[in-house]
């Protein structure tokens, strides 16, 4: 057991899997010698050599396509797209090729690969370093979509993703790489070392895909969230004195519906929280499912707390980000109805 931040935990997952499986290869922009702009792949080239951890040209389409060819050969590509905002040149390869290959080849050419990508805002990255495009991938049959929120889960989920037979889009909430963020941007960042989820077991362990985690048990309300917003939501329910059950979904596809339904049936109220823009966001899917499955248990309309339907605005970051004020208002509304 070691204390790690999320970057160290992800790095450790790479090392554990690259040691265990010679078919795991890592590449991406700046991911080789330097170890990535967020240092997640640091030291891999040194330990595993240049042909298993290397720099790629600035060509997300080429990176994903090369991974398709490698997976067809029998390797397990573990690739980095430097920012989720840059993933779009690779989108055709992901949607038309990676996601559909098992299906269109009747199982002959599955595409086991992990596409890691830092996502989300709160870092003053402007519109090209802050986006949360997860719903563009949850909509695509054939992909699994994973979002960790702690160092412990980041390592375990990444190991599970690498071992998974299907392609996984692995969104890393970069705002919480170094420490959990409670949404109060004017307060100092708490490092992960002060958080129990920074205790990361040594060696191999997997956090299974498709299983949510109840982060806080409660009776009054269910909060469904993931990524950075797990911590922002937790802080908000504590600050507002709401006895909420906070669920970290961890995997968006396949979704742990059982945990969601059990909780909403218990609490009778539900709030969905994500950073991504509102319209057609993954929250819309969650609200629809809760409405379909738990309608007669609901005591109030399900509310959403989200980013606004604008591009991510640089200097207006904290007016855009779904922080404590937006959460407070939504909590009051769901609890008041």
């Amino acid at each position: 057991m070691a204390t790690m931040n999320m970057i160290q935990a992800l790095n450790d997952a790479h090392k554990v899997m690259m040691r265990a499986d010679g078919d795991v290869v890592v590449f991406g922009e700046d991911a080789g010698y330097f170890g990535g702009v967020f240092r997640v792949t640091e030291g891999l080239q040194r330990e595993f050599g240049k042909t298993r951890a290397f720099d790629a040209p600035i060509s997300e389409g080429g990176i994903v396509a090369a991974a398709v060819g490698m997976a067809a050969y029998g390797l397990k590509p573990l690739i980095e797209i430097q920012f989720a905002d840059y993933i779009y040149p690779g989108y055709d390869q992901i949607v038309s090729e990676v996601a559909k290959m098992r299906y269109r080849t009747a199982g002959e050419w599955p595409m086991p690969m992990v596409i890691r990508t830092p996502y989300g805002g709160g870092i003053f990255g402007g519109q090209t370093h802050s986006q949360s495009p997860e719903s563009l991938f949850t909509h695509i049959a054939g992909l699994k979509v994973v979002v960790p929120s702690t160092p412990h889960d980041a390592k375990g989920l990444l190991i599970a993703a690498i071992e998974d037979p299907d392609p996984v889009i692995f969104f890393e909430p970069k705002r919480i790489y170094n420490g959990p963020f409670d949404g109060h941007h004017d307060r100092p960042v708490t490092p992960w070392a002060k958080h129990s989820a920074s205790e990361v077991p040594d060696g191999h362990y997997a956090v299974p895909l498709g299983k949510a985690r109840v982060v806080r048990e409660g009776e009054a309300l269910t909060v469904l969230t993931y990524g950075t917003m797990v911590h922002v939501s937790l802080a908000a329910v504590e600050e507002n004195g709401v006895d909420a059950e906070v669920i970290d979904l961890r995997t968006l596809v396949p979704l742990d519906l059982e945990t969601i339904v059990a909780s909403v049936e218990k609490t009778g109220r539900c709030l969905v929280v994500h950073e991504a823009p509102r319209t057609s966001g993954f929250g819309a899917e969650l609200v629809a499912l809760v409405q379909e499955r738990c309608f007669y248990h609901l005591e109030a309309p399900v509310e959403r707390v989200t980013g606004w339907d604008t591009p991510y605005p640089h200097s207006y970051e904290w007016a855009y980000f779904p922080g404590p004020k937006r959460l407070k208002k939504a909590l009051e509304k769901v609890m008041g109805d």
Partner: protein
Amino acid sequence: MSDKDPKVTRANRPVLALHVPEPHLRPGDAPDFSAIVIPAAGSAPRPRTDAPAADTHSLATNLVRVLGDDHRAVGPWDPKIDPEILRKMLRDMVTVRIFDDRMYRAQRQGKTSFYMKCSGEEAIAIATAAAMDRADMHFPTYRQQGLLIARGYPLTTMMCQIYSNGGDPLKGRQLPIMYSDKAHGFFSISGNLGTQFPQAVGWAMAAAIKGDHRIAMGWIGDGATAEGDFHSAMTFAAVYNVPVILAVVNNQWAISSFSGIAGAERATFAQRAVGYGIASLRVDGNDALAVYAAVQWASERARANAGPTMIEFFTYRAEGHSTSDDPSGYRPVNEGKAWPLGDPLERLKAHLIALGQWDEERHSTLVAHCDAEVRAAQKEAEKLGILPQQGKDNIASMFDDVYADIPWHIAEQRDAALAEAKDR
């Protein structure tokens, strides 16, 4: 703003004009290929296979040709192929042509939704298959059915795919002719053009990472070279010195758009390799011996870690893009017959006859044999059904293979689909 700028006088400047490329001839015009430069067979030099890429770049504007007007093989590119291999190539080309005709007709008879012929381009896939190792990997487009046929993939199975019937290995999920078969080194064809080109590079990178001996070949059409994936493939192939052959089949037509719309007015497709520092060959695609020689050259180069090669196969799409296309709406009729580089099948046949290794009688026997073989395969395939009868049985299979295991939401939808099917 500049309208008011007193420093700007436009009196002596031309008005800016956008150039939209236009083919020289349109429907109603008589076919005329006199503008096409065709170097004599045997005139192109053959660099060593480990030569620096730059030594090949004069070939990007040349044309590697082996078969002369006298049907003899000539020059440094003559691959000196055993007549047995030539006869196998001829046989495969005859089979592909008959197969195409039968399946085109099957589509017209309503037995399937769609078909694509490779008329006039048969030599390219077939001579390539003959020149490469059986274990090498192809990432083809939809006009390389010849690769499967040359590698002995069962004709009946191809037809079952076209009919989406019970014998279709792809379980009725793919458009006709989008074959896929691992055992025959034939990667799943995508309808999104160009995607396979950088995938071929990735496969060959994996082979190099693993210290394999197999190489890969990526295929693309002239039209799809305009896709970003083309550039990705060239960049990755050059950066990592990948053991891959990158083939552009320039049949000059992308549905109704002539190759000028893909940039061919400015440079040959082979010339694109120059800027990447990749070896480049431009080859008469209707000359089976030239195709063989070029692919053999590029294979040797790749296998020796001497780098990737781009090959432009210069040819002409003799018929429509697909069964959904009618070329008389955008180009002169009978252009295919006027194509100065001829019919690849007739040229190979004439070569074998010139060698004293073939004659008309043997050819008639071959055609009759291949025709019987294709008809028999079709009969077998149709026993398992044609497209209009499909899509009713085993609806549950529609939900398989989206993921390795069926997640709950897809299982629920499968049950709903099965219930819906019962309702009818």
